[in-house]
């Protein structure tokens, strides 16, 4: 049974109060300074003072959430360290502070971050931002669990959550992906255009929760025996594993928990730690036990166990550039939408505007007629406007369609073998 780790709650309470007061102060500064700055300005001599107030307001506005975030990071670091204290089977690496150690783990046999690239669980990423890693061995199976954000070449976040990797005893041919069931239309869209096929399995309860895709119908079923289906259902019932998706690829079991964060909720800063620390500590202690539970629930075999010759082992490219710390603010899904879709939307709007005006003018010209001296000039303008409108709208829609096609669709964008 999981027990909460022992922590110095008095110290944590002092830090909470300090952070809470600082963030409140920053927020109050923002709330007060902004209207003062707006009120003070108006003349040349007072504009400097007004500017200082406005600047203080901006700083306060930025500082308040930043302080809360820093406190959350502090709590997570402290509590994770406490959760693994005294355990020999698992260790915690603070990737924000130990970049070389985290890089080594993510490229090791225990993890191999590069293996996730073509797993069908996450979109093909370029870089990663890792905050914390849990690595170890359970029943001889090396594993790694990382709280991570995967970024594309432009720095936009493709995945945020927790990735887990388990090194299996043997390499298996093909790729088998177990994802959540998204309904008939959702499932069709999920794999549209991908190189994988749907695997229909015998268990209706399993089929109700998951959808299985693979590039080898037989190899997928060798892995997903009826016993394994039961185990995956059991895994889904574990608190921390609920909502998981996984892939069996070569000698690895790769698991993705999209959206999982190890931080405590921000609003906890307003509550004394005595009220919630125990719950958070127990939650993290259960999280630390999760990889062991996965190994036991799925009955994964230890690497090095006597096995038959198997498919040739291909080492996944482990060279994923890492960035420490939390991802930049402008990397979120909203900014990705703005960054990648914004220009396309401008094209659509501009094309619709100019094309619409040109169509209206064309309609007017047809119904009423243009003055003879401007006839060719105006019809030329109408034609140019319609051509531009069609081009801009088409171009924008094409870019938006491309973005929608790539959006949160790891299977669709999976490279064919």
């Amino acid at each position, binding site marked *: 049974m999981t027990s909460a780790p022992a922590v110095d709650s008095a110290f944590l309470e002092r830090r909470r109060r300090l952070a809470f007061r600082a963030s409140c102060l920053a927020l109050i500064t923002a709330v007060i300074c902004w209207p003062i700055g707006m009120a003070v300005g108006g003349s040349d001599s007072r504009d400097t003072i007004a500017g200082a107030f406005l600047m203080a307001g901006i700083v306060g506005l930025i500082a308040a959430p930043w302080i809360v975030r820093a406190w959350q990071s502090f709590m997570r670091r402290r509590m994770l360290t406490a959760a693994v204290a005294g355990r020999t089977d698992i260790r915690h690496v603070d990737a924000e502070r130990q970049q070389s150690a985290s890089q080594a783990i993510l490229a090791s046999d225990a993890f191999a971050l590069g293996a996730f690239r073509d797993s069908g669980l996450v979109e093909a990423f370029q870089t990663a931002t890792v905050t914390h890693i849990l690595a170890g061995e359970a029943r001889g199976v090396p594993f790694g669990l990382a709280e991570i954000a995967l970024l594309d070449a432009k720095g936009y976040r493709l995945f945020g959550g927790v990735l887990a990797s388990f090194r299996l005893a043997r390499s298996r041919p093909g790729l088998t992906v177990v994802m959540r069931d998204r309904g008939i239309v959702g499932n069709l869209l999920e794999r549209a255009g991908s190189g994988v096929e749907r*695997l*229909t*399995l*015998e268990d209706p309860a399993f089929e109700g929760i998951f959808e299985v895709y693979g590039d080898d*119908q*037989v*190899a*997928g*079923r*060798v892995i997903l*025996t009826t016993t394994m289906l039961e185990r995956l259902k059991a895994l889904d019932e574990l608190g921390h594993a609920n909502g998981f998706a996984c892939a069996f690829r070569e000698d690895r079991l790769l698991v993705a928990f999209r959206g999982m964060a190890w931080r405590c909720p921000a609003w906890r800063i307003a509550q004394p730690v005595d009220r919630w620390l125990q719950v958070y500590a127990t939650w993290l202690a259960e999280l630390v036990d999760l990889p062991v539970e996965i190994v036991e629930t799925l009955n994964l075999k230890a690497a090095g166990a006597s096995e*038959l010759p198997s498919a040739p082992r291909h080492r996944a490219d482990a060279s994923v550039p890492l960035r420490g710390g939390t991802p930049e603010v402008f990397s979120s899904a909203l900014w990705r939408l703005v960054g990648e879709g914004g220009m396309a939307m401008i094209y659509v709007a501009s094309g619709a505007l100019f094309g619409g005006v040109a169509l209206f003018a064309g309609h007017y010209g047809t119904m009423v007629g243009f003055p003879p001296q401007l006839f060719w000039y105006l019809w030329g303008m109408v034609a140019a406007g319609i051509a531009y409108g069609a081009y801009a709208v088409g171009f924008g829609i094409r870019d938006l369609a491309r973005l929608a096609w790539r959006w949160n669709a790891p299977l669709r964008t999976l490279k064919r073998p």
Partner: protein
Amino acid sequence: MGTSGILLIIGVAAAAGLYAWYASIIARRNKVQEALSSVDVHLNQRHDLIPNIVQLAARFMDHERSLLTDVTRLREEARNTPATTTDAGKRFALEGELSQRVGQLLGRLEAYPELKSDRPLIEAQQTWTETEAQITAARRFYNAAVNQLNNAVQIFPGQLIAAIAGVKSMPLFEAPEAARTAPTVDAILGRRP
């Protein structure tokens, strides 16, 4: 829009629906053939293992001659039965019996302590187990494909379309009757009751 226009639209929609159904039946039949050939590949892989197992076992199990002969005979029969959609049922029955006999043979090996440490035989047993797992998976693939085909063929108007396309329902792979009864220790070790 007049009545003829509506009828035309209904006719076009019905024709498109029937064609889609026809296409799905053909696609599913092809999937069954793919599954069947996959089963066949793994069964052939198993056939290739049998002479080796029989040869290894024969060195020590002279008085199990009848069992060894049975295994060899069944293997030949199974090999000579084509894995076509028409002969699938017969082939599966033979393969089921063969699997059962080889299982008996491997079970009886336990009675020979000198065989337990025979490295080539242990490897052959492991390979057998692995191949059996792949055959099981291939059969599940076959059953899933057949289930989809049979649904498309048997649900109205699938019967009519399937008859036009010349596609029939396929048999599911089912475990032989003997495999459904729990084996007794005597049967495994070849003792007389």
